[in-house]
C-alpha cells in the first residue's frame, strides 16, 4: 500500500508540468494592480501562467490580460453570474478549470473575494489552501504572516495542487504591457444558484485605492470627528495618496469601514516605505516604528504640512 502510494506520487510529480492559474481581479476592464503583483508571485514559482478573467467585462479584460508580461494563456468566462464573485459559482468555475488543465498552482490576489471562493474550491478538491503569502521560497515553500504579522511562518505544502492567496504588497507588479498570450474561453461550469447577489454599496472615491496607493495618510481616534478627516483628505490629495483609518476611527463612525487598515482591514504597503508619525503623546507606540516622528498637535501640524509641501 505504502509503496503503491510512493509510486503514484513519483509518477504524478514526473508527469505534472508546473503550471499556474492566476484568477484576475479587474478595475473596469483593466487588470488590477494586486493581480499584476500575483503574476510576479506566479513567475517566482515558475511554469506557464494562465490568467482567468471572469464576469461581464471578461471580453475586453481578456485583451488586457493577454498583454500582461509573463502570461502565456488567457481564459475568459464572460458570464454575468461571475460579476460579484459569488463564491458558489466561482468555486465551480475553478474546479472545472482545474479538472480541464490540472494546474500545479492556483493563485489569486488576497481580497475578501478570493478568501471567499478559494477555500470553498479547496474543500471540493480536498486541498488545504494557503492564505496571504508574502514570499515564494520555492514551488512548495512560502512565507506567510500569522498572529497579526507578529510571526512569519515558513510553510511547505504537501498538496498536489496549491491554492494560494497572494498578499500583493509582497511583490512588485508585473508589467501590464509586453505580453502576447493566446485567448480562449474558460471551461463551462454548472450554475449552483444557492446564493444570489441582491445589491451593493460601493464607496465612491476619486482618490487612489488604499491597498495600492503610493502614499497613505491615516487617521485614528485623535481626529475626534468625521469632519476633521477633511484635513487628511487635503493632505492626501496634495501627495496623490489615499486616506486610511484605524479601527477606532471606523468604530466611532468617522469614516466607512473599507478605509480600515490593519489585521481586520486592509493591508497597505505604500511604495514609500517611510513611516511618519504625528502624535501629541510622546510615548505613543507608533514612534517605535516611525522613521520620522513629530510630537505635536495634529490639528496644528497637518494643515501646516499640507501648506508647505
Amino acid at each position, binding site marked *: 500500500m505504502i509503496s503503491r502510494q510512493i509510486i503514484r506520487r513519483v509518477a504524478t510529480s514526473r508527469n505534472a508540468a508546473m503550471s499556474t492559474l492566476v484568477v484576475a481581479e479587474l478595475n473596469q476592464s483593466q487588470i488590477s494592480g494586486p493581480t499584476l503583483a500575483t503574476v510576479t508571485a506566479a513567475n517566482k514559482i515558475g511554469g506557464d501562467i494562465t490568467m482567468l478573467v471572469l464576469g461581464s467585462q471578461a471580453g475586453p479584460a481578456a485583451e488586457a490580460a493577454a498583454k500582461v508580461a509573463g502570461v502565456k494563456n488567457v481564459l475568459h468566462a464572460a458570464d454575468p453570474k461571475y460579476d460579484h464573485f459569488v463564491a458558489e459559482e466561482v468555486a465551480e468555475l475553478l474546479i472545472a478549470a482545474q479538472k480541464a488543465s490540472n494546474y500545479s498552482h492556483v493563485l489569486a490576489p488576497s481580497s475578501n473575494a478570493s478568501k471567499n471562493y478559494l*477555500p470553498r474550491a479547496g474543500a471540493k478538491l480536498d486541498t488545504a489552501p494557503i492564505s496571504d503569502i508574502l514570499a515564494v521560497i520555492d514551488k512548495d515553500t512560502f512565507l506567510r504572516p*500569522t498572529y497579526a504579522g507578529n510571526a512569519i511562518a515558513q510553510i511547505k505544502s*504537501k498538496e498536489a495542487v496549491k491554492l494560494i492567496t497572494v498578499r500583493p504588497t509582497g511583490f512588485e507588479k508585473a508589467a501590464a504591457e509586453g505580453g502576447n498570450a493566446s485567448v480562449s474561453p474558460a471551461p463551462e461550469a454548472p450554475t449552483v444558484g444557492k446564493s*444570489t*447577489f*441582491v445589491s451593493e*454599496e460601493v464607496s465612491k472615491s476619486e482618490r487612489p485605492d488604499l491597498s495600492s496607493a503610493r502614499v497613505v495618510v491615516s487617521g485614528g481616534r485623535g481626529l475626534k470627528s468625521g469632519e476633521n478627516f477633511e484635513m487628511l483628505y487635503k493632505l492626501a490629495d496634495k*501627495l496623490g495618496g489615499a486616506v486610511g483609518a484605524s479601527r477606532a476611527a471606523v468604530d466611532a463612525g468617522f469614516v466607512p*469601514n473599507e478605509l480600515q487598515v490593519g489585521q481586520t482591514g486592509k493591508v497597505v504597503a505604500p511604495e514609500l516605505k517611510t513611516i511618519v508619525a504625528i502624535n501629541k503623546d510622546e510615548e505613543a507606540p507608533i514612534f517605535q516604528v516611525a522613521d520620522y516622528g513629530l510630537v505635536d498637535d495634529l490639528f496644528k501640524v497637518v494643515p*501646516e504640512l499640507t501648506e508647505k509641501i
Partner: protein
Amino acid sequence: MKVLVPVKRVVDYAVKIRVEPSGVDLKNVKMSMNPFCEIAVEEAIRLKEKKVATEVVAVSIGPKQSQETLRTALAMGADRGIHISTDMRTDQELQPLAVAKLLKEIVIKEDPKLVICGKQSIDADAAQTGPLLAGLLDWSQGTFASKVAIEGESAHVTRETDAGIETLKLCLPAVVTADLRLNEPRYATLPNIMKAKKKKIEILDAESFGVDLTPRIEIVEVKEPASRKAGIKVTSVDELVDKLKNEVGVI
C-alpha cells in the same frame, strides 16, 4: 431552527507574543475566545432572542482548556457545548481543512440549519474554516458578514467587500462568517456564569471521527518579522518637510 457556533481558544489579542523557531510560545500565556468567535456567539444568541433560533450549540476543538472557552459561550447564552478534544496545536498543527471536516461531522450529527463562525482566528489568520465547511457540506455561504437577517428559508447577508458592502440572498442551510462590525458581543454576567456551569458539555475525541487530521501543510520555521531601524524625532514641520524632501525624496 438550530444554530451551531464553532468557537476557538486562542492567545488573547492583547498578549505580546514570543516567537520561537518551532512556533509561538504558548506556555503560561493568557488565552481567550477568538474575538470573531465572540461576535458569532452573540449573533446566534440574538437570533434566539428574536425567536428565530430555537437552540444554540457551541462547539470547540482543542485541548481540555477549550472547555473554558465553551463555558464563556454558555455564559453568553449558548444552550449547550460540544468539546472535540485533541492535543494537536490548534494554531498550526490542526489545520482549517481538518477542522472543517470535524465540524462537518458535528453538522451531520446535530443537523443545524445555520452555522455561524468567526471570519478568521487571530492566531493562524487563515480565514478558511467557514468557506471550507460550506464547501464540504455543499451549503451556501456568507462570509465577512456585517448583517444577517433570516427570512423563511433564506438568509439575507450583508457582507464587507473590498470596495464597500454587498447583500446576498442565501438559501438555507448556510454557513455565515462574522466580521468585526456584525455586532458588539455582550459580557457574561456573574449569574449567567454561574448558570453556565450547569449547562451540558459533551466531550468527544477528535480521533474518534475517522477524519484524517494529518497536517497538509508543514510549518518549517517561525520567525519574528524583520524589525525596522530606529527612527528620529523631528521638532518642527519645516524639519519634517526638509527630511521628506531631501533625505527620502518622498515629496
